[in-house]
């Protein structure tokens, strides 16, 4: 089993979730992994305002972040050409495990979906995966974000995910996250939905 070590010191995290208790868990986990700079917001207005005004290295965002939702935040950040955070990794955190939700997140430009409730190992492994697995970006009139066609590589440190799932505890399996994977024939076909109220903020 390979073990990838990530160094989060000095990296600037933005955690966007309305639930203070959940947010506390995420921040605690990130600090346990060595993160030193974590900012929290509780709504999409504050998230967009911060993402438009200061540099972050990664965004962890609830899919139902009120009032617009995390996918609209993702879409807004990816579409704004002059936003210095346009290409940052975005993890959507969601309790909705439906396949359709993952597709929508992918088409909004998210890098990954992290299923709630989260476990420490799933969060660490997904951060390591983002750090060590380069992905191209795609820019078209209807989509801007990570290439939705990418190799089905295992996460660093966990060997094969399916193997890991069977070998792990039940709780661990329930925590496992989903990557946004696609056999999309045309990576430029996004959903294109947007919220004007959100897009107007700058």
């Amino acid at each position, binding site marked *: 089993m390979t073990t990838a070590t*990530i160094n*989060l010191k000095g990296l600037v995290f933005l955690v966007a979730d*309305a639930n203070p208790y959940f947010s506390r868990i995420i921040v605690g986990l990130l600090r346990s992994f*060595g993160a030193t700079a974590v900012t929290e917001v509780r709504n999409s207005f504050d998230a967009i305002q911060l993402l438009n005004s200061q540099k972050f290295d990664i965004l962890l965002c609830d899919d139902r972040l009120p009032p617009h939702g995390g996918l609209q935040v993702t879409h807004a950040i990816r579409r704004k050409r002059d936003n210095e955070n346009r290409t940052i990794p975005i993890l959507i955190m969601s309790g909705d495990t*439906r396949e359709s939700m*993952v597709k929508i997140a992918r088409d909004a430009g998210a890098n990954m979906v992290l299923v709630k409730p989260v476990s420490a190992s799933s969060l660490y492994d997904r951060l390591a995966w983002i750090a060590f697995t380069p992905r191209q*970006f795609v820019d078209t009139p209807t989509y801007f974000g990570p290439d939705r066609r990418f190799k089905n590589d295992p996460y660093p440190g966990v060997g094969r*995910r399916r193997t890991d799932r069977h070998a792990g505890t039940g709780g661990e399996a329930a925590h496992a996250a989903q990557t946004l994977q696609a*056999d999309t024939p045309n990576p430029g076909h996004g959903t294109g939905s947007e919220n004007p109220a959100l897009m107007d903020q700058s």
Partner: protein
Amino acid sequence: MPNPPADDPHTFFVETNFQRLARRAGGVPREQALENARITLETIKVGFRDWLESEIADLAAAIRRGRTGQPADVAWAETALLHCRQIRDVGTTMGFQLVTFIAGNLCEMLDNVIAGAVPRNEMIDCHIDALYLARQEQYRHLSPEQLPELSGGLRRVLEVAHAGSPAKASGSKMAPGGEEQT
């Protein structure tokens, strides 16, 4: 950034600051990070029981309000769903798998109500009672699989609720940790 032709996806490589810095030497190895996390979660768990008690009370209060208001007004269900999701999203991480399971079930039922389904009071009450049960110490470390009668019964209740739902979104659920391609 060059303008690509409309139907010609333009791809380019980006090494983000996150990738560049996260790969530096000197990070926290996975095993150490997970041990640190375990200790951190233990400290966060200290206040969990009080928080859970308060969230269940707020959830139950929202449901009670729904029974005294106009049937078409689903604001109560939206409030209830907010509390229910909050419970679901942290239960397992705090060591209460059963709480997450029950709250997840109830979230689906409340989603149905918001989508137009008629609230089934007895089914909702059944879940609230189950939440009060699952928060107790003796159920804390039990998974739904260890209580097949309870979990199976709640699953069947949810199926019945779905059967009566007019606008349940379709879509297969991914297995936890699954690799289903989108």
